[in-house]
């Protein structure tokens, strides 16, 4: 690990990053850019975002703190944090290769072999090698541990049969982190799972794009039919799959790791909703003169501030004594549900214009709010539905019994 930088070194670095992002952050490309890595729909969007990530990497502002021998910058993580902060300040586009640098990369650096680090890290930073994730299956959405895609060892290869679904960038990825079943033996369903770093271009792997609720693309279903991948794609040993998959989920949930930097999701600004409300009319008057709308808006602001305060409080030990894990475990549920309700509410400001949709020239903010609301379900469903989250909080925080 590089030594901790001085304040002066960080200030110099920030000035340098600031100049670079001010100069290089792309202006409006003339088409709608994805707000998250799950929404990459067109070739145009994909190529634009690949080029942007490569440019940021080559300038040294992505992977700045990853080891130099694998393609990183070898600097202290504080530098990368500053680069990401500046990127955010100039509201740059997202980093596209989220599964690569957000999940697979930290995993490989954490527990991967020397060969794996040499082979994969640089390509994921430069966006040459796009990664996707193969966890969910058509029949096993919430019940991840029951994954059934089969991987059978045959000489120097594994033979894959089954299907994965909700795979973001699955039609464009070179590699997949794959959870597959190598055995039906063992004390429980988890014991037979194994984890692979699988090439997507193997014969027998086909993808079909899924058109989303928004009308856009972004996910695929992957079909594996006697697909053969080299045996060395297995990460760890057979049977380690569940444990490794849980580790990657920890990275997603922000466990302490040396992050590559950047961000994969654009944030919706709470005050943007208030701004929209201010611009809206009811009965010839400002919408926020309507006491009912005003009341609902204030209710949301109370809720937003509560989540903000929760985030501060969860790091303050004496203020979370009774149920130390409560705030952390309820966070996903509370945030995603609030965003869903808030974006739904934002549609009601628009009066008749709420009837327009994305890309109509008369749509409010080009349909941004409609798209945000419909996309909000990706977060209340993906990564464990809100219903599963309630079970988790009920069982792990309140100690209620598991359903049978």
């Amino acid at each position, binding site marked *: 690990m590089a030594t901790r930088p001085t304040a002066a070194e960080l200030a110099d670095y920030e000035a340098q990053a600031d100049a670079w992002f001010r100069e290089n952050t792309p202006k409006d490309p003339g088409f709608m850019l994805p*707000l*998250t890595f799950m929404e990459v729909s067109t070739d145009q969007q994909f190529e634009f975002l690949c080029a942007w990530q490569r440019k940021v990497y080559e300038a040294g502002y992505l992977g700045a703190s990853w080891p130099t021998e694998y393609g990183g910058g070898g600097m202290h993580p504080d530098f990368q944090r500053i680069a990401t902060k500046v990127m955010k300040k100039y509201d740059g586009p997202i980093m596209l290769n989220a599964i690569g640098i957000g999940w697979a990369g930290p995993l490989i650096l954490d527990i991967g072999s020397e060969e794996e680090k040499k082979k994969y890290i640089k390509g994921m930073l430069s966006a040459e090698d796009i990664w996707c994730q193969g966890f969910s299956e058509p029949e096993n959405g919430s019940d991840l541990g029951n994954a059934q895609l089969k991987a059978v060892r045959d000489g120097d290869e594994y033979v894959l049969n089954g299907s994965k679904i909700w795979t973001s960038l699955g039609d464009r990825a070179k590699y997949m982190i794959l959870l597959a079943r190598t055995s039906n033996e063992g004390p429980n369903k988890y014991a037979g799972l194994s984890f692979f770093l699988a090439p997507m271009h193997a014969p027998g792997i086909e993808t079909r794009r899924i058109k989303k609720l928004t009308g856009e693309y972004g996910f695929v279903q992957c079909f594996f039919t006697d697909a053969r991948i080299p045996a060395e794609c297995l990460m760890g040993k057979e049977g380690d799959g569940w444990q490794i998959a849980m580790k990657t989920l920890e990275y997603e949930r922000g466990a302490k790791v040396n992050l590559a930097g950047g961000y994969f*999701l*654009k*944030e*919706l*600004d*709470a*005050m943007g909703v208030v701004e929209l409300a201010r611009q809206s009319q009811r009965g010839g008057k400002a919408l*926020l003169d309507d*006491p009912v709308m*005003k*009341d609902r*808006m*204030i*209710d949301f*602001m*109370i*809720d*937003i*501030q*509560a*989540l*903000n*305060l*929760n985030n*501060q*409080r969860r790091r*303050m030990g*004496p*203020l979370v004594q*009774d149920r130390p894990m*409560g*705030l952390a475990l*309820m966070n996903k*549920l*509370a*945030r995603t549900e*609030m*965003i869903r309700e808030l*974006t739904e509410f934002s549609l009601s400001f628009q009066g008749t214009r709420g009837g327009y949709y994305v890309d109509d020239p008369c749509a409010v903010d080009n349909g941004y709010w409609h798209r*945000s609301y419909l*996309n*909000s379900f*990706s*977060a209340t469903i993906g990564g464990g539905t809100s*219903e599963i989250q*309630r*079970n988790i*909080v*009920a069982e792990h*925080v*309140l*100690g*209620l*019994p*598991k*359903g*049978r």
Partner: protein
Amino acid sequence: MAFSEENLANHLGGLGYSEEQIELMDVATSFCRDKSPIDKVRKLMADERGYDAQVWQEIAELGWLGIAIPEAHGGVGLSMAEVAPIAEQMGRRLLTTPFATCTVAAQALLAAGDEVQCGEWLPRIVAGEIATLALSEPHGDWTLSHVEATAKPNGDGYALSGTKQFVAYAKDAALVIATVNVDGAVRLALIEQSAIPDGALRREIIVDETRRTYELTLDGITIPASALLDAGRSATALGQIELASALLQAAEMCGGTQSAIDYTVEYLKTRKQFGKLIGEYQALKHPITNAYVAYEKARSHMLSAAHNFGQQGVGEIAVRMAKASADKAYSFAADRAVQFHGGFGFTHDCDAGLYRRSAIWHASQFGDAAWHRAKLADLLF
């Protein structure tokens, strides 16, 4: 879709705490648990005075009545931030005493009293003499400046007239601080126990049976001119009374919400129907989880209100958000607590009813959630 609340947070207060706050939280947690088991709460519900004089004395001896009173007046010299965690634990154990009303009465004296008035009363409050507030009137308006009771010049002093309601623990109070209208201006008047004639107090039947309040008939009471607080600081004092009361209520309500949830969760873990623990059914499991999520949000707001109390601008916003979210959380948790206890929930023996009635009480005093949201809209839009 991720979400940024930073932009909003810039307008509002953040979170923090003091060492003293945490120490008091720890002491209050065990004190309230030990002094107020539920059978004791129920025993006191049937008691005329409504609280244990011995416990009241201990509260005074712990110094809790002087926490937010300056040392010069015999207090501890901390702030309302340090009072809130105590109120939270009291609410959690349904330990009802004149604690909140005395604390707020002291704040009113500090806001509009002169040296003589503060010098006389604050040390007595610290020592455990009860001071209470007479604010509400038959019109039922939460606006504290809506005062119909009057004080008219009469010789050297003033003659009072009108009716005050929900005067907490008035029977035992050495001092009642009442809002009265003097020539069209709202003033605070100090009424000593000796000035209150027999029959002027009527014990009210209130929804929360763990508390005691009285209706006070002001007609026939006269006070000396020196018993009026500073006219110029009346509005400030009313603001301080409202916000201090709302903060302490929010704290008590958070504690009550916590208990309503704990009490219900315990039942869901032990009661069986159709061969299963009822806590296995998502129809009960999920709403109680929603109640818990609302509780944690309300508690974050309450701790922020305590931390930011008295800060220009952000303090008032934080307190109103705290009361609004506490009302929402407590009402929902206690309502579901009754329902989820089934037939037993409908009985007076089930503690769920104590929490439900407590939540109704708190919503009825110093504004409910909708009232505070309306005030917030004025502050934020």
